[in-house]
Each structure stands twice: as C-alpha cells, then as structure tokens.
C-alpha cells in the first residue's frame, strides 16, 4: 500500500502520474476530440447484445468458423452481423423496407438495401471502429460502435 502521508512518496507517485499523462500521443488526442462530431441526437441507439469474440472457446473453432458474430437490438428491431475477411454480411430483423449504412471515422459512408429477407452484404471493410445505421421510413437506429 502506498503511504500517502509521506511527502516524498506522494511526490514520486505524482511524478509517475504526470509522466504517464505526458505520453499520450497527439494522434489519439485528435481522434478522441474528433469523435464528438459523431454526436447524433436523433438516432436511437441499438445496444450490443452479443459478441462471439468474448465466447469461451472462440479461438479453437476449426475451418468451419463462421467468423465473428455480433448482434444489436432495440425494441423489436435487431441487426445481426457476421464479420468475415474484409467483408461483413448481416440481416435486419424483422425484414422490412430499410437501408443499412456502414459508418466509420475517416471512411466514406457505405449504404446498401437489404433484400426481401433482410440480408445484406458490404464488401471491402477494413479494420477500425464502425457502426451500422438502419434507416426505415419511421426511424433511424444506430448500433453501438464496435472495433473490427
């Protein structure tokens, strides 16, 4: 335990804390500041309900590994995403007249229209933070951000 009552101990701890604060890269600082421009008050948030990356035993699946599966939902609407190599496919449930837009910082929005069963596929998806925005005639639902 740290003896906080000792001035020299406190100064040493303070030195470490301040030094750690100084190591933050400007790149991360700028990116963190820029995150604020993604604030959208009108979109409703779809929470991340499931991420297969956190399942025990995820690493030992064989060649039939379906890739990382993510599920988001809000109310009656859900979006299931399968992350493959360089592409994502997914399904909006219940199937409805909607568009799905993939958003990420520093990349252009990519919008697709799911088919009659709600399935969609987006090619050439890189790594980094993304979210999916489902737009129907009634509402706009944005998934929580995830790192691919």
């Amino acid at each position: 335990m740290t003896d906080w009552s000792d001035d020299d101990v406190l100064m040493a701890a303070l030195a470490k804390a301040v030094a750690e604060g100084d190591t933050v890269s400007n790149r991360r600082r700028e990116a963190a500041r820029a995150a604020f421009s993604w604030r959208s008050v009108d979109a409703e948030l779809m929470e991340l309900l499931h991420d297969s990356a956190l399942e025990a035993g995820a690493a030992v699946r064989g060649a039939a590994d379906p890739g990382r599966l993510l599920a988001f939902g809000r109310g009656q609407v859900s979006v299931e995403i399968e992350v493959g190599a360089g592409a994502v496919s997914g399904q909006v449930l219940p199937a409805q007249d909607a568009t799905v837009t993939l958003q990420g910082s520093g990349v252009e929005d990519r919008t697709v229209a799911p088919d009659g069963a709600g399935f969609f596929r987006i090619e050439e998806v890189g790594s980094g933070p993304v979210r999916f925005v489902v737009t129907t005639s009634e509402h706009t639902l944005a998934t929580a951000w995830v790192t691919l």
Partner: protein
Amino acid sequence: MDTSYPLHALVASAREGDQDAWNAIVERFLPLVCALVRRHRLSETDGDDVCQTVWLRLVEHLDALREPDALPGWISTTTRNECLRLLAARKRMTPVDPMDSSALGGVTEDVSGKDLVAIEERHALREALAELPAGRRELLVMLLTDPPIPYAEISERLGIPVGSIGPTRARALEQLRNTRALSAAIAAELETGGERR
C-alpha cells in the same frame, strides 16, 4: 471551459454540444484510456482503434450518463471490455496450434487487479492535481520536472522567495491529499487494503 471545471459541468456542457467541454473530458481521461490499452498489449494500430471506439461510445452514452461521478468507472470498464473483444477477435483470425493449451481459453486475460489499482491511482493523482489552485499546481509540476529546475528559477518564475518553496510544497501536498479525487482514492485503498490483510 477547460479541464479545471468540475466533471458534472463538463458533462452537462458536452451534452449541449460544447466541443471545448468535450475536449476537456478527453484531456482528463485519455491518459487513463491509453494506460489501460497499453496494459493489454494490443498493437499500436489496434490500440488506436480501441481508444477511438471508447470515445465514440462515450459520445453516444453521454445522454444516458445520469451520474457524472460514474464516468471514471464507465470509461475504465468500457476500455477493458473493448481491449478484450479486440484481442479475442484478433486471436480467432490466426491459426491455432491445438497442442498449445494456452490458446484454448478463448477469452483473453484482463489486466491484473494490482495493475488496475495502480492505473486508477495515477488517474486519481492527475485529477487531484487538476483540482489544485493554478499556483500550487505549477509549483508541484516544476518540482517534478526532470532534470530538476533550480529553486532560484522556480522562485523567479512563480514570484515566491526561495525560502518558502519547501513550506509551500508541503502545504500543496496536504491540499492535494484533501482533494475530492485523492481523498476518495485513499479511502477506497484503505478499504480494499484492509480486506487483503
């Protein structure tokens, strides 16, 4: 608005769309996020991505954050979860040797409790420093500078006699212990420290 404003004021203004308030929140918590990311040994690029995801999540979480005092805990938990997710996702993309039992876990280990306490302690110390009046904060920061700044120069820069630097340092440290941030950290440590014995 800058980092010296109370957290609840910064959160309230950020909710109203104030970029300066947001920048101040970033300034105060980014070192904590980076320290946690570093502990999880992600690649530099993945570290950048996790870091960015945490801030994007906070942007969408701002309105739901009822109690700004819960922010440090929220940021810490979110960062650790995002690190674990990405570590696990990267792991499943690489071929696994079935003979290597260390790969069978799936879910990757989190930072140890001791590391986490140290990381959160350093965050509390930076927060405590931010709570001090500017003059005392500057004095402490000058005294911490490596290589050391001669007392004569500190005296000149801050306009205080050399002889009062020592006593002022003692008073500043006493004030630091009594800040909201540090007194809370000390109390929390006494509690868990007592349990460990």
